[in-house]
């Protein structure tokens, strides 16, 4: 008799079935992509500039519908979901944008608290959590600074704190180390892995930093000519691994 394991019942965190994307009448940027990310997995997405990494991520955080195919998050096909339910799904996804997209008129603290305000939480409920999170990313003394007064690395950490403050089920990061020095890049990657390991967050990181990818034992998906291929690693959840994929990192 087949032995039943808990992960047999788990829905994929992300599932793309035959997904294609084109803008207006241009050529297809993505063609017939199939992808499954299991809950708690840690993956990289790579490819040359203009290969369509950001476009693929847009599909994952539901900013763009595919031209063809189906995008499912947490077992729910998104193409026919009412708008309110799409909003509910987005709340389970944290996004770190390549260009941070912090709101300039809000402080670091207010930027991090933004997703919680969107969810209708009161400040008395989240104040301590936000302050602790910002302290955890090394910005405990910079809570009330506006983004323009923060360095690139500090802004990056605020953006990451904003993405994880709701403890999302899926974390999507687009070139999160593109604007920081190698030491900061290593620290941020360790942060992502800690989130993945401690909270079971499914993480997918788009990067063209091959040096970074080589240091971490995680599956790598490569985009080329609109097609997606898996280059290395398994998609098993890293949370269940015994070894630390970051052990080789500085």
């Amino acid at each position, binding site marked *: 008799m087949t032995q039943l394991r808990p992960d047999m019942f788990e829905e994929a965190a992300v599932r793309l079935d035959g997904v294609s994307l084109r803008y207006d009448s241009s050529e297809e940027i993505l063609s017939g992509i199939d992808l499954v990310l299991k809950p708690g997995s840690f993956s990289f997405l790579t490819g040359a500039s203009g290969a369509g990494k950001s476009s693929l991520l847009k599909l994952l955080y539901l900013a763009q519908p595919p031209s063809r195919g189906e995008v499912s998050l947490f077992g729910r096909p998104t193409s026919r979901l009412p708008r*309110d339910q799409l*909003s509910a799904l987005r709340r389970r*996804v944290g996004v770190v944008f390549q260009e941070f*997209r912090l*709101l300039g008129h*809000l402080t670091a603290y*207010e930027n991090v608290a933004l997703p919680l*305000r969107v*969810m209708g939480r009161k400040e008395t409920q989240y104040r301590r959590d936000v302050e602790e999170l910002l302290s955890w990313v090394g910005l405990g003394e910079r809570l009330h600074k506006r983004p323009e007064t923060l360095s690139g690395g500090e802004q990056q950490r605020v953006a990451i704190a904003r993405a994880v403050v709701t403890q999302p089920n899926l974390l999507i990061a687009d070139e999160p180390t593109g604007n920081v020095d190698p030491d900061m890049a290593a620290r941020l990657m360790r942060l992502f892995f800690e989130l993945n390991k401690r909270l079971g967050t499914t993480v997918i990181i788009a990067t063209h930093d091959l040096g970074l990818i080589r240091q971490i034992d995680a599956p790598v998906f490569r985009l080329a000519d609109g097609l997606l291929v898996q280059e290395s690693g398994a998609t098993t959840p890293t949370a269940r691994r015994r070894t630390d994929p970051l052990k080789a990192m500085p």
Partner: protein
Amino acid sequence: MKTRESSLLPLEDAREAALFFVVGALCFLAALAALSAKSTYGAARAWTAEVEGEFTVSLSGADAAAADAAARLLAQVDGVKEARAFSDGEINALLEPNFGRSGLPADLPVPRLIAVTGEADADDLGARLSTALHEAGYDAAVDAHAEWAGDVRNMLSVSRIAALSIVALLSATAIAVIAFATHAALLARRDIVDVLHIAGAKDRFIASLFERRFWLLGLRAGTVGALVALASVAILIALSRSGAERTGLLPQLSLDFPDLAVLVVTPVIAGLAARIAAGITVMRSLRTVM
């Protein structure tokens, strides 16, 4: 430490200051047009009521005594409130612009005039006055001022339609300007809208941010416009009172309760128009994205 949560939209910028001015100016004009329309209505009522109850009877070949007798006869006609023969002095005063202060030659046959004021609900009074005079043997003509009253009524109808059209046009312009400005504000803050959208904000949540912003903008701009209109009307009233004897047929400006109600309602309408326009614009714009 308890702090006040910042607005998720940035503070007003130069575009909104310009919009504030435009909405304020439109509300000022709309309030003035509404007050003018109301004054025109009031004047129309007063003028037509005044003209329609008045008759002028001219008696040919009659002296002052005959005119007095005719006035007494007319006073007894059903529906007549008052009938009074003009004195020589009054007739001379009426003719003074044409004949000078020396008066008329005694032998010049001038008709005697009788002013008749009828009851408001008296039907067909002009014809009955004419019949009474002819039956008593007077050579008389009764002028009900029908032609002049008709002209006044026509002129006032045109004035009312013009005033109401101006109010409607200004209101529609204000709404269109606000809708356009909201759309521009939304485009200018697309980054904020995108971040909120991706963070899981519902369309209604995002729209409510803009609705609140534009409701307050419309309310404040409308209040400024209404206050400037109030000041303008007060100045016009003061000026018209200082030259009261020359106001003639001009509509009487006033600031009674209905006028003040117009001034209070103007900013509320501006605020509501801004809020509704903002809500519709934002919801439509959001529906174009996933």
